[in-house]
């Protein structure tokens, strides 16, 4: 068990690349920050898993249904792993985290506050959103100071890698389809482009403690820009347009520049006031209630031992 005399000692340990374990006497501010970060990640995986589940019966063809099923299992599985390591921090139990999520008192990522209207939307989510989520998780993994989170992220990232390739395959399938499919796909890209780049959040604060404590390894704006440089050409190459009238390529540097983002709507969205937040929460509550017989059966198994 490690302990530190002061926050300064702790921060020096972190700067040296130190790894914090659950048995260590970490400063409360760090414990709480790591907990909140993991809880947000867990909630987002869980809410994402529920959307993915909606598409198991609707995905076109058996193969797509099977991959939707596998992805659902992965997302719910990631939530499960994350809730376990979050609970070990001793801030809230798993039950309390679920209660708070379903009551709408905690948060989940912006991208799960919008309606997935069509198969095209589902492809846009798989292609644009999964890639953005993966990029931000990789940036956490790279230099993460909390040991259990770093270890579990290795597994999550490997599986999200499958999802991202799956998303690209789906997008390219749509791109090489009929005019109707390409139009459908363009509509969906128009809806999901901005939420995907907003996933990285507004520019990081200069004194962001998550950066200082090696929970995040890169500033939000750096990750967002890297994503833009990668995905603008990819979309254009696939024959799609980027829904941003202010988009241009810098003649000298070759870099893609996007219009300024209005971050105000995102703030409301993150407080569960997004376009589809209410329905998503009601749906999650219903799913939780529907599965209560499983939890009851497990509890009875405990009692009967």
């Amino acid at each position: 068990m490690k302990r530190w005399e002061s926050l300064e000692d702790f921060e020096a340990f972190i700067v040296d690349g130190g790894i914090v374990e659950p048995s260590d006497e970490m400063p409360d501010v760090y414990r709480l920050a790591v907990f909140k970060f993991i809880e947000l990640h867990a909630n987002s995986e869980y809410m994402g898993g529920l959307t993915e589940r909606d598409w198991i019966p609707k995905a076109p063809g058996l193969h797509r249904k099977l991959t939707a099923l596998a992805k659902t299992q992965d997302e719910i599985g990631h939530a499960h792993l994350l809730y376990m390591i979050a609970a070990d921090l001793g801030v809230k139990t798993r039950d309390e985290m679920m209660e708070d999520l379903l009551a709408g008192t905690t948060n989940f990522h912006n991208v799960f506050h919008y309606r997935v209207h069509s198969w095209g939307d589902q492809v846009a989510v798989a292609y644009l959103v999964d890639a953005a989520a993966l990029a931000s998780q990789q940036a956490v993994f790279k230099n993460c100071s909390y040991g259990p989170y770093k270890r579990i992220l290795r597994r999550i990232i490997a599986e999200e890698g499958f999802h991202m390739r799956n998303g690209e395959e789906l997008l390219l399938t749509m791109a090489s389809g009929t005019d109707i499919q390409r139009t459908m796909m363009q509509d969906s890209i128009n809806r999901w482009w901005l939420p995907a780049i907003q996933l990285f959040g507004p520019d990081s604060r200069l004194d962001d403690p998550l950066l200082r404590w090696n929970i995040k390894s890169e500033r939000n704006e750096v990750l967002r820009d890297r994503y833009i440089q990668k995905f603008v050409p990819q979309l254009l190459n696939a024959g799609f347009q980027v829904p941003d009238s202010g988009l241009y390529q810098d003649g000298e540097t070759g870099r893609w520049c996007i219009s300024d983002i209005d971050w105000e709507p995102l703030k409301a969205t993150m407080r569960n006031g997004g376009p589809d937040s209410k329905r998503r929460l009601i749906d999650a509550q219903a799913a939780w209630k529907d599965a209560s017989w499983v939890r009851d059966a497990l509890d009875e198994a405990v009692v009967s031992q």
Partner: protein
Amino acid sequence: MKTYEVFLKKAGKEPFGHVGSLDAPDDHMALLFARDSYGRRSEGEQIWVVGRDHILAGNQSDLALADRSHKHNDGRRVSELRTSQRLKKELGE
């Protein structure tokens, strides 16, 4: 519910490694959940699931006893001796 720790072993020479934890009502369900949570893609050839209360965890003071440098040899002395021998030989010739 009881908390279990899960260990997986890939085929081949790799040792068992800790992969994470889970909650289950009993040992039988713990194995089932372990497969679903940690072995969905045949990540391992063998699996161990151990109740967390059954793990005896030592702390750092159990391991970091004192200076144990005599139990290691980083080879620095060897390289110094080799260099000095080579120099002697070269100068002698």
